[in-house]
């Protein structure tokens, strides 16, 4: 994950192949059977429906899914940011050994910002336009360091701005968000998130609003900071390319459920779920045959109010019939995908491992553009 270190061969670095989920017990963040429901006028929205995962310090989990897959709702639940009046949250969320679900407002607030922090997609709306950038960062520090005086907080904020690569941090401290460019604003957001040295960082589409050359800078910065602070990172994105670049483990979500989970090598190199196959073969690539047709997933993502019964993906799955009526009646559980190399690789699919291997080899690996 250290991209500041040039590797003379130009090859991607040799990351050790570690099983995706080692003993969850030492993980900094543990989420078990998380369910988030919203009561709306149109009905109950099951935004997250039984999702489990864990992230250790120093590792990055990429959560992938399309709009409405529940990825952002999951992260807001971890941070305790849902309105308790309208939201029902069940399951376990443990941050550094502390339960978040059911914790009072005041207690979650003490965790948030100090032990866990979030980077939002749109830094312009996440920063207050009326206060200087520096003041907002300094305030985030003083909230959790009540003994620090103004000068110390300012110094800390300037140091953080410097650390995230903002030139002339002392001068920038006194500027307003609108005086920052998009990339600089996202750096300032990162500085604010990291000012209290949180062990868990949740980045929700942190680079989606940025241009590619700036995105590359921000992803490098996150990797550097992670190496320095040994933080656990959750990176929420729809971009499989970004996941391949920075994540250690991947969780693929669909219709509020986890459909596949494993190390980045497992999920992107030997994907098991037909939805993951669909995502991979529908993304255009810079390599491979430019004239090959993209292979889209037919249909549209489901409505969370009216999720298809059984496997939520079955109406869009070309293999749904192979699993018989089960695909329409039974929600598949997240189970080990196979043996040997695939230790820790989980998939929620009614197809057998043999069937998946055959379909993948025949229909996916040989066509499309992602290979």
């Amino acid at each position, binding site marked *: 994950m250290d991209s500041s270190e040039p590797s003379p061969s130009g090859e991607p670095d040799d990351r050790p192949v570690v099983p995706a989920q080692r003993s969850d017990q030492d993980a900094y963040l543990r989420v078990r059977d998380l369910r988030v429901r919203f009561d709306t006028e149109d009905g109950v929205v099951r935004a997250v429906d039984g999702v489990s995962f864990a992230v250790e310090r120093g590792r990055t989990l990429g959560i992938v899914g399309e709009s409405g897959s529940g990825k952002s709702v999951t992260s807001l639940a971890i941070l305790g940011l849902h309105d308790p009046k309208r939201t029902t949250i069940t399951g376990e969320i443990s941050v550094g050994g502390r339960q978040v679900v059911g914790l009072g407002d005041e207690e979650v607030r003490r965790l948030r910002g100090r032990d866990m922090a979030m980077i939002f997609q749109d830094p312009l709306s996440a920063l207050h336009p009326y206060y200087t950038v520096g003041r907002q960062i300094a305030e985030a520090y003083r909230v959790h360091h009540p003994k620090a005086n103004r000068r110390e907080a300012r110094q800390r904020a300037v140091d953080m701005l410097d650390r995230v690569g903002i030139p002339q941090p002392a001068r920038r401290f006194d500027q307003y968000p609108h005086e920052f460019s*998009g990339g600089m604003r996202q750096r300032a957001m990162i500085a604010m998130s990291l000012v209290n040295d949180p062990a868990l960082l949740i980045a929700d589409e942190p680079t989606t609003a940025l241009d590619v050359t*700036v995105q590359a800078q921000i992803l490098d910065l996150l990797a550097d900071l992670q190496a320095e602070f040994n933080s656990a990172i959750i990176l929420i994105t729809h971009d499989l390319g970004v996941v391949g670049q920075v994540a250690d483990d991947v969780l693929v979500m669909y219709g509020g459920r986890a459909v596949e989970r494993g190390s980045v090598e497992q999920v992107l190199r030997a994907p098991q779920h037909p939805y993951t196959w669909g995502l991979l073969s529908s993304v255009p690539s*810079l390599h491979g045959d430019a004239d090959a047709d993209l292979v889209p997933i037919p249909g549209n993502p489901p409505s969370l109010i009216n999720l298809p019964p059984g496997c939520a993906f079955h109406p869009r799955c070309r293999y749904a019939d192979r699993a018989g009526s089960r695909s329409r009646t039974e929600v598949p559980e997240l189970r080990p995908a196979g043996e040997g190399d695939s230790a820790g690789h989980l998939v929620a699919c009614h197809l057998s491992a043999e069937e998946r291997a055959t379909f993948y080899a025949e229909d996916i690996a040989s066509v499309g553009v992602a290979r």
Partner: protein
Amino acid sequence: MTDEPLLRVRGLSKHFPVRQGLRATGLVRAVDGLDFDVRPGETLGLVGESGCGKTTTGRMLVRLLEPTSGSIEFDGRDITHAGRRELRPLRQELQIIFQDPYASLNPRHTVGRIVAMPLQVNGIKPPGGIKARVQELLELVGLNPEHYNRYPHEFSGGQRQRIGIARALALRPKLIVADEPVSALDVSIQAQVVNLLRDLQRELGLAFVFIAHDLAVVRHFCQRVAVMYLGRIVEIGDRADIYERPQHPYTRALLSAIPDVTQLGPAGRIRLTGDVPTPLDPPSGCRFRTRCWKAQDICATEEPALIPRDGGSQATACHFPEGEAARTSPEGEADSTSPEAAESTAQVVEEVPS
């Protein structure tokens, strides 16, 4: 296919005055002297980062914006400053697809009315009647013709984009300007729309100016590609030239920055530092020089012309293009990341000739 271009753009510029009160205090050179051709049936991609002027260019091509200078010739006619009446017959042959499938459809009109609108405005009476033609168009873009009477809110984002495409096709245009037609869509839906546009382009022999920031999508759609930076084209060429033999440092940096799903781990060897400078006050000489690792004195004083290299169709606006004898070695010194330098210089983390 003839060699006579369908669209000929020369010296096209758009400058927006910046006012404070009544006084003009500056000029945003959003587009500053573009030259390019599009032949019949050809797909040209306009790519670049935000603020490079690609959208402004697209809007000038369909004359939603008035060019400040330069000329646009369409099918042999000069349309740079054509008036409303002159434009009307022309709009039949020159259509646009917008980025936002939510904002570009009137929510109070049925799909049938939206798609029929161009026919009615132009007083065209198709042989089988308007309704039959609209249903034919809906079918062509993969929508159910029975949904003629539905409203836009009843459709998903991808379906709405199809409605926009059906509307653009209603008058059998020769050229379609597509401004980021898939960037607002989910990935699985993006592929559906890209495939649809590709099929239509082939079946109907349409020419496209395809505006996008996503170079991977452009690679799958366009035969030729123009890379823009701060209002200018820095490189133009066939797809294979641009993606496999990019000669402009900016094109190389842009390609290198894209996280590609086929590559795991930290990818990309070139890192540009800083952001794109403001078009209010673009750098002198070569506009990319403030972020370029090859910049020399000449780059600050002389603007490089877009000139063809190797006698081919690829043209590059650079004093030190790739693959030339006078190749400067990139610097990768760590001190160029110092905060003072970070905003104005470029750094190559590592560079390996591929």
